[in-house]
């Protein structure tokens, strides 16, 4: 019996069972970097997991909130904090080529795909998104309209196949979804067609431009989904919080700030250097960068040594890879080479973060 006849509910064939959504953290559940704090993200960096913020000239904060349409719990809230016309302004998600190869981008077998999301804004009007390739030389801009202010609305748009162009197939940027939040006309193009160039959205996105220059304006988005085909199916809830966290940890792994806990273990290499080894929960997309919240909150404790001068003064990579590797913790003195021990987050909670984002 064909599988299509088995996958039925109330005698209806249910197509495309299994994980459909190509977007990671589309329900805005995971926020390892900023938690629930409204944060002014430096342009080119990330707020809520997997969602990069790109703007220059204007400014806004990003926040994970619990304002969401029925069936969802979290959303991403942007709040404009200035009135300057931006040089560019968008946010989006870069998707690994490995995760979109089944679409067949750039081949004769390319399929259409559909983008859907819930949105709410204090400024109604015409907005737009753009789908681009990693090279930034092909874009498909699409408009959408927010009809009513401060009201959740679901939007969807189908992107037709593209059989040409350069589309990477590896762990780099294979497909890029951008939400245009007021980029000028130099960075937009005519809607509803594959265009040559690097465009954040569609021409005529007057609502987005107005939003970007209205201090205090808000924009919420959640339930974002990209799926193969020409139909926007209901937002996929098949993956649990834990599964979404795991998907995000391929791009960002954080040892969460928790005072009063050991966070790493290892051994003293010398009187001033303690070597630790970490193994990530899953293979990261690339060898990650390391950042630490407040290094002075970490102490090294070993057997056979005194207690003074063991507060960390530096924490850095040493032989790291996508699966894990070494981390050196430097101390002023008082370690004994060869003695084992651990790194302890002492007084105030402080994170150790590994970033392999696109």
């Amino acid at each position, binding site marked *: 019996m064909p599988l299509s006849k088995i996958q039925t509910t109330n005698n209806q064939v249910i197509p495309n069972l299994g994980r459909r959504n190509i977007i990671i953290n589309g329900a805005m559940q995971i926020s390892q970097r900023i938690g629930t704090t409204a944060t002014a993200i430096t342009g080119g960096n990330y707020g809520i997991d997997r969602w990069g913020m790109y703007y220059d000239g204007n400014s806004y904060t990003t926040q994970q909130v619990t304002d969401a349409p029925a069936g969802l719990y979290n959303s991403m809230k942007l709040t404009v904090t200035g009135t300057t016309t931006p040089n560019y302004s968008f946010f989006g998600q870069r998707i690994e080529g490995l995760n979109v190869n089944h679409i067949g981008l750039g081949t004769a077998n390319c399929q259409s795909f559909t983008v859907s999301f819930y949105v709410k804004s204090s400024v109604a009007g015409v907005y737009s998104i753009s789908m681009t390739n990693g090279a930034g030389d092909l874009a498909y801009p699409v408009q959408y309209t927010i009809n009513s202010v401060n009201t959740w609305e679901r939007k969807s748009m189908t992107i037709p196949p593209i059989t040409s162009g350069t589309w990477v197939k590896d762990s780099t940027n294979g497909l890029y979804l951008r939400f245009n939040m007021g980029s000028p006309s130099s960075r937009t193009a005519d809607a509803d067609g594959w265009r040559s160039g690097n465009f954040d959205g569609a021409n005529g996105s007057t609502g987005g431009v107005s939003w970007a220059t209205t201090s205090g304006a808000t924009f919420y988005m959640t339930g974002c989904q990209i799926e193969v085909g020409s139909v926007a199916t209901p937002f996929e809830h098949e993956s649990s919080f834990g599964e979404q966290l795991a998907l995000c940890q391929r791009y960002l792994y954080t040892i969460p700030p928790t005072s009063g806990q050991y966070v790493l273990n290892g051994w003293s290499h010398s009187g001033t250097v303690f070597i630790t080894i970490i193994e990530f929960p899953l293979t990261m997309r690339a*060898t990650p960068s390391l950042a630490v919240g407040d290094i002075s909150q970490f102490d090294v404790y070993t057997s056979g040594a005194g207690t003074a001068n063991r507060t960390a003064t530096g924490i*850095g990579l040493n032989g790291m890879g996508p699966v894990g590797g070494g981390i050196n913790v430097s101390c002023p003195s008082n370690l004994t080479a060869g003695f084992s021990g651990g790194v302890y987050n002492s007084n105030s909670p402080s994170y150790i973060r590994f970033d392999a984002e696109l």
Partner: protein
Amino acid sequence: MNIKSAKYIKNIITNVNDNIKAIIDEQEMSVPLDPANRHYVAILEWAKIDGNTIEEAD
């Protein structure tokens, strides 16, 4: 990304360049020499600008 400084750090075991200690967006970061790492790519672009140099390791 706003990069203020960058300096190679040697692997403590092999004594060859292993990563770059950099100040990026006001935060100290340890950046691997991986061409797929976005911070490393940004540092290489930054180093192409006159006056910017990745310091040699100690």
